[in-house]
Every structure is written in C-alpha cells, then in structure tokens.
C-alpha cells in the first residue's frame, strides 16, 4: 500500500497496454477489418436488394389459352404471359413462373380450368388465390361484401427489417469467436503465451484485454450496421439505441468468452477452426439470422432459444421493434449471461499457456 506508484518506464497499466496492443494488431490486419466491418454491410446491401419491397411483387402467371390471358390482363398483382403449354410447364418447373393456367379440352361454353403450382411455395399458393379471384370476377362473380385495403406501414415488417438485427448478431458471434480464438491460438503457436507467462503479468489481465478490445470495436461494428441499415433502407430502431448497445455488449462478451473457451487448449489453427465451425454452423442455421427459427417445428423452439445467437437476435429484434425496453429481453440476457460466465470460468481454468 505504501509502495510508491510504479512509473513503469513510459508504459501504461498492463491491462491498458495489452488492450492497446490488441487493438493495434487488429487494425493492422486488413483482412480482419474487412470481415468485421465491410463484409456485414455488403451482405446487408446484397440481401436488402435481393429481397427488397417484397409486398409489391407480382405473381408470374403462364396461360396456355389466349382468351383466358386476355381476361387476366388487367389484374393488378399478376404479370401474365400467354405461352405454349410445354414452354409454360418448363418455366414452372424452373421457378420462373408461380402458376400455370390451362383449359381442359372440350370444356365449352365456360372453360374448365386447371391451376398448376407448387403448393409448398408460398408464392404458388398466393398466386393461385389471386388468379382464381381475378378470373372468377372477370367471369361475373359478384362481391357481396364491400371492403377497403388499409396497408400497415411497410417499415418494420420488411425482410431487411428482419435481417439487420440478425446480421448484427451474426457479426457479434463471428468477430467475437474468430477474432479472439484465432489470435490466441496464433499467439500460442508462436510461443508468445509462454513468453508472457514468464513475466509477472497477471494472467487474467491477458484474457480480459481481449474482452475489452472487443467491447471497444463492438461499438463501431454495431454502429456501422445500424447506420447502414438506417441510411440505405430506412431500418429504424424503435427502442432506445442504448438498449441496442446493451444487448450487443452482452452478446459480445458472451461470444468473447466462447472464443476464449474454444481457444483455451488448441495448439493448432486447424483444431481451433474445427471447433469454431462446429459451434458456429448450427447457430448460423438455427438461430434466426437469415430466416425465422419459427420455420422449424415448434417442439425445437425452446432448445433453439437457448443458443446464445438466438438470444442475441431475439433481444435485438425486440429492441428494434421497440418492445418494452430491456425488460422484454430479460430471458435472452439471462441465457447470454449463463453462456458467458460458464464459458469464461472453464476457459480460465483450462487455459494452456505453452
């Protein structure tokens, strides 16, 4: 206690130096900067364009009978083409048409129709309803009920609105686990960990410096994706931005701990890569980054919700939708805390310094 504060000869506190060095190393690795900052934005751009404005798409209808094609011509959500039967069937098989309308031979005076579509595809089912509706009316069906379409705001329910929080989650996972796991194993194979262990450095400082440098970069990563989504596609965060940050920090720390765990003992890049993929691939698929996990049977949902990436994605979407601040995300934050603390505890205990 009475000891005068050591000057450390021009250096800062070891934790500060370790964190600083981590950040410098990261920034001097152009590939890493690309994957962490540029790639998610490019992905958002590509997917945002590919799936843009899906509400306004029209169904692609192939019609083998010119008379029927004429009747359909004015229908608002249909793009209709009259074509040979064989060509129409081929186009349907290749997914270039959503539905083919044929007329049964010898069905006069009113045609008997055959609708061909893939009923496993939502577009096929919707196209069938729209075509049938349009034709029935064209042939004189009366509408007993009056109605008026009131469209909900597209904003918030488009694919890009779903995607942006998922991309943030994915990015937190990728940069946390790869960024940390990889550099620790590299340091181990280069004998650097052993060299540090030969100094009076406090070992937890080394591990904590990874988490700290992640936290600092995480703010930029999340800001890059949120900012891009907002500027390019108008994806709005309806909850407070601080809540986004809080969830991101929770997720970032959890994935940092998982990265530490995976790297705790690996001696080679190959083995750490294998473990990373084993851990991350299921989450890529299951955790609802690109599509909702509710497409899987309901019996699986509780298990899927226990995955850390699912927790991050769900919590982020809740904040984006503006639901009940953080209180709504408590179960997700609890899942994250459990993964993070358990992983960190095991990682520290099992960490191999040589």
């Amino acid at each position, binding site marked *: 206690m009475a000891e005068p504060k*050591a000057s*450390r*000869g*021009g*250096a*800062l*506190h*070891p934790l*500060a*130096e*370790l964190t600083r*060095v981590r950040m*410098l*190393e990261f920034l*001097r*690795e152009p590939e890493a900067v690309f994957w962490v900052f540029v790639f998610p934005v490019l992905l958002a751009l590509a997917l945002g364009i590919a799936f843009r404005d899906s509400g306004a798409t029209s169904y692609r209808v192939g019609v083998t009978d010119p008379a029927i094609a004429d009747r359909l011509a004015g229908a608002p959500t249909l793009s209709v083409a009259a074509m040979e039967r064989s060509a129409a069937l081929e186009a349907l098989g290749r997914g270039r048409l959503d539905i083919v309308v044929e007329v049964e031979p010898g069905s006069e005076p009113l045609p008997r129709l055959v609708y061909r579509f893939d009923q496993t595809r939502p577009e096929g089912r919707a196209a069938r309803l729209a075509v049938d509706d349009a034709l029935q009316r064209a042939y004189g069906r009366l509408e007993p009920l009056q109605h008026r379409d009131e469209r909900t705001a597209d904003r918030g329910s488009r694919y890009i609105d779903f995607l942006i929080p998922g991309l943030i989650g994915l990015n937190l996972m990728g940069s946390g686990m790869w960024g940390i796991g990889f550099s620790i194993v590299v*340091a181990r194979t*280069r*004998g*650097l960990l*052993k*060299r*540090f*262990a*030969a*100094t*009076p*450095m*406090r070992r937890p400082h080394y591990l904590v410096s990874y988490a700290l440098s992640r936290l600092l970069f995480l703010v930029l990563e999340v800001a890059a994706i949120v900012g891009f989504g907002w500027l390019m596609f108008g994806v709005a965060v309806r909850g407070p931005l601080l809540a986004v940050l809080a969830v991101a920090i929770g997720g970032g720390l959890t994935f940092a701990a998982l990265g530490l765990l995976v790297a705790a003992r690996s001696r080679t890049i190959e083995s750490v890569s294998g473990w990373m993929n084993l851990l991350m691939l299921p989450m890529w698929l299951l955790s609802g980054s690109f599509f909702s996990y509710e497409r899987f049977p309901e019996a699986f949902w509780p298990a899927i919700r226990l995955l850390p990436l699912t927790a991050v994605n769900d919590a982020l979407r809740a904040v984006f939708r503006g639901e009940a601040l953080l209180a709504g995300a408590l179960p997700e934050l609890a899942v994250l805390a459990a993964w993070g603390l358990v992983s960190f505890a095991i990682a520290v205990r099992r960490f191999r310094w*040589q």
Partner: protein
Amino acid sequence: MSGTGNDRGVAARCVGLVKRYPGVVAVDGLDLEVRRGECFGLLGPNGAGKTTTVEILEGLNTPDDGVVEVLGQRWGTGDDRLLRERLGIQLQETQLADKLTVAETVRLFRSFYRHGRPVDEVIRLVSLDEKRNARVGKLSGGQKQRLALACALVSAPELMFLDEPTTGLDPQARRHVWDVVESFRQGGGTVILTTHYMEEAARLCDRLAIVDHGRRIALGTPAELVASLGADQILELHAGGELDADRLGMLPGVAGVSARNGGWMVRVRDVGAALPAVLGELERAGAPLEQLTTHQATLEDVFVHLTGRGLRDG
C-alpha cells in the same frame, strides 16, 4: 525466503533435477550451481536437456524430482510474481507479434514490471533506436533476437536466462548479441545461457557445464575444460587402411586418440614430435594418408572426447 548465509553468492542452483517425458528422460539427475555475477553456460547438442533445465529454472516447467532454487526462492513456495520481477527471460522460440513495432513491443513488456528500465533506454541498449518504429515482422533475424533481449532486459533483471540466443544468426549478428550480453554482465548481472556453439560458450561464459542426455558430463571454466584434454593441438586424420589406436596413442607427443567419423582424432601435446611419428606409423601400417588437419584444441574437442560425437551431430 532468503537462503542460508553461504548462499548469498548463489544466483541459482538445482540438485538432482529429473524431468521425464513419455519414453524419454529429458533431464537425468542434474546438479548445477550458478554464482552471482557470472555467466554460466550449458553447452550440449540439441536434445541434451538444456532447454528443459532452463525452463524449470525459469518456473515454466515443473521437475519430476530434485530441488530448484532461483535467487534464494523456490518456485511455488512464495510469491512467484515477485520472483519474476527480478528475472529477464529470452526463450528459444518466441516469435514476437509481427504487426507491432519495436517500441510497442518493449513498452508492452515494460508494463508487466513494477520496476525496470525506461523503454527508450532499453531500445538504445540493444541498438535498435533506428528501428524503433519498425514493425517486428520487418526486422532481420539478428534484430528480432536483440528485440527479444530488450524484452528480457526491460525489467533490469538480476538474473537473465538466454536460451540459444544466437541460433541461426550470421556471425556479425551473433557478435552484436554477444555485445549486449557483455554489457549486461558489466553492470553486475548474472546470466544463464544455453548454446550449442562452442565459440559462444568460450567467448561469453565464465563457467560451463557440458550436458549430454540430461546429465552433466563436465564442469569448469572454458580454459579448464580444454586443459582437461591434456593437449593443446588436435590432429584429425583419415587414412586408407587399418590403424592401431593403442600404437597411435603411445607415439611421442601424443596425449590420446579416439575414432571419429571414420577417421582419427589425435590429441597432441607437441606437434613437432607427434606429426612425424604419426606419419611414420601410417607408413608402417601401410595406410596411405587421405586427409590431415590440425587445429587448436577447443570445447568442441572436449565434447567429442567425452561423447564420441560432435556438438552438431544429429
């Protein structure tokens, strides 16, 4: 904490050190005592157990048996971190981070120690001032090795461990490293050094232990060890026929003979007397001379004499 009174002069010691790995005994009952202020060398071929021994002394590895004391303290019995504050360590195969600069690297290591030298002073000490802001990845092998020394010196250590500090360096880079070690010695520091270069051992070390198969096979100053050969010249010869070792050994001026690499290594007290006698013996045996060299006896010859192998033989 501190040892008994007569230990004051001892920087490090180990007694009956044993380390086994599956299928191999790396260190086999080694005794060493390193005095304060000296440069003590472990000379031996690759795989002799030098690195294992040093890593046990450094507290990076644990022995299966034996006693280790460094600066009067045993690892794991007191505050190991306090002991580490007093050591400077260069490991055999550390590759420092390529993306950091020289100054950033030294500064990082400096931050681990409560007391030590200022970063700039250490960089000057190893003559890397001009490379201060160069990335580690851009340094030459010799410069990297001096940076490793800087990281060891930054704690202003009482005891410095150097494990093969010049392996793979060209002669000029090697001399540069030696200069740094010698200036540390002049400041009163103790050095424990491993090497398989006998020139390095002869140049830097006050005392040496020659180590083979995890055992100490000789101990002394470089001059004492060379003197133990009983000869100051070595005559190496290859002949095209059978020679009788006993007859060779009895020739005038010859101290001893051993077979080596299909030829003979003759330890010679008096070249003037021995050379004609050896040539005469060849003629008598009807073995034509194929090759003959003679050189001043070195530590290498001591090792060959003790083991029948060279320091750099596989």
